[in-house]
């Protein structure tokens, strides 16, 4: 007797949809607040003028070297929310990535699951698919909340289409962080180590990206190639549109990490 199709997927959704609401609304309100604090175009121009008085390092790091872009509502939201939104999403995706195998293995619950007629591959794929779907839900809720914030500030001319692209652009990077955590869980198993490594990768990647943007001619400029945030590019994707090459690359790496996680988990002892 083989197990029912998608039983693990359905159970994962059932257990975690409330978390999706919490995170989606929470992150969305963070973005909406940025829209709400802006009352008119004059205040944006004041911020842009202030930026131009700062040392070039800061202008590079926080406005991508384009202070006038900051004078637009989209540019302001990009630098004040979308530039770091992926880090906030990482807190969610690392958390749910741990739920795929690491948490249950650490707590001894994996013995119960793997004594059932379900393969390790199916377990990881169904859970990851469920969490990927929930991550989509968090992105959509975030967009809805930001849209609500923008609707509450009618004095500002904001292109909602660009904001929608900027929000959807969070998804590929989030999936990569999710699958990175799944990969580490499949490979290592120890929850604390998985959490530490995943968090360090995200933070280091973020810091390298900031430093590389501020000082492109340095070692950080070279290292930026390996930074996830280089391909996320949360600030300028709103101005320039979605970079399909980056999106495809992030999704391909995500798929590779997921495949690696499945292979690693299949090859090792569980719960030792």
């Amino acid at each position, binding site marked *: 007797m083989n197990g029912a199709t998608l039983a693990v997927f359905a159970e994962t959704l059932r257990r975690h949809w409330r978390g999706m609401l919490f995170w989606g609304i929470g992150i969305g309100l963070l973005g909406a607040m940025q829209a709400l604090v802006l009352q008119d175009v004059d205040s944006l121009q004041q911020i842009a003028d202030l930026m131009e008085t700062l040392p070039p390092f800061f202008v590079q790091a926080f406005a991508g070297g384009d202070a006038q872009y900051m004078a637009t509502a989209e540019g302001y939201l990009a630098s004040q929310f979308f530039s770091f939104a992926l880090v906030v999403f990482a807190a969610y995706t690392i958390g749910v990535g741990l739920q795929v195998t690491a948490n249950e293995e650490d707590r001894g619950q994996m013995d119960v699951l*793997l004594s059932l007629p*379900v393969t390790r591959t199916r377990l990881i794929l169904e859970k990851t698919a469920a969490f990927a779907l929930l991550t989509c839900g968090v992105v959509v809720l975030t967009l809805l909340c930001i849209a609500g914030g923008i609707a509450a500030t009618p004095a500002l001319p904001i292109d909602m289409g660009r904001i929608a692209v900027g929000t959807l652009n969070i998804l590929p990077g989030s999936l990569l962080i999710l699958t990175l955590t799944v990969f580490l869980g499949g490979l290592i198993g120890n929850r604390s180590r998985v959490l530490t490594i995943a968090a360090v990768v995200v933070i280091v990647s973020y810091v390298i990206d900031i430093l590389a943007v501020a000082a492109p001619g340095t070692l950080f400029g070279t290292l930026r190639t390996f930074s996830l945030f280089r391909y996320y590019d949360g600030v300028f994707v709103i101005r320039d549109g979605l970079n399909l090459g980056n999106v495809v690359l992030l999704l391909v790496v995500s798929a590779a990490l997921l495949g690696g996680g499945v292979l690693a988990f299949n090859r090792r002892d569980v719960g030792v």
Partner: protein
Amino acid sequence: MSGTNILQTESLSKVYAKNVRALDSLSLTVRQGEVFGYLGPNGAGKTTTIRLLLDLIRPSSGTARLFGLDARRESLAIRGRIGYLPAELNLWERQTALQIIRYVGSVRGGVDMPTVRALAERLQFDLTKRVKAYSTGNKRKLGLILAMMNKPDLLILDEPTSGLDPLMQQIFYELVREARAEGRTVFLSSHILSEVQAICDRVAILRSGVLQAVQRVDELMHADFRHVTVRFAHADGGAALSTLPGVSSFRRDGALTAFQYAGAFDPLLAVLAGQSVVTMDIDKPSLEEIFLKFYDHKEGDES
């Protein structure tokens, strides 16, 4: 008992990191319809064996077959026919028992709710609470329901009565006997010998990862020795017994003499024939005593 081998291991070994040998060349056969006790002190390798059978860990060498299928390559088909209760049952604390039962059932392909409710009734278990609200004993009951609810062909139970009160232990014994009566097989790990004595057909004794013996419980009960207590008419009545071959743990307290006796009774009766015996009691040892004696002999041989 049909005699079909349900479980068979050949030189099954497991060596963990740092060269810790948890199981060493285990060769074992369990037949269909048998209640097989797997005994040994903590750390003997019982749980390691079970985790190898379930493909949770992989053997360093040797093979295991269940239902004639390879435990490593055909694990999925095997697990569809197994009910498993781990020694340390860790479930999802925020879920209710019913939610967990439905989840486990759905992965198995369906839940037989009448069976679940019947088991819950016999074990006096409330299905509606969250796991974190259950006592240790109640968590164990939930584990038994999860293992038994699909009426699997093979029950693998690791320390099943740990945390159960004596009344529930008796109900568990009934459930095991019923499973055996239906032709299903039970592989039961335990260090509680009275439990094994109560329900098992055969036992394997494991120590430090090495199989020490496999024997029918009823044979084991007759195999080794008897407790003999003799009250003589005179205080010096039992002195001659202390040197009799087969006598051990010899104690005298006035006219009362107590000892353990192994072997044929003719020589003992011959010695007693010349004495004035007032009363004599001969008691069977418990399996635990046989077990300890077994280890004593082994350790004596090794030293």
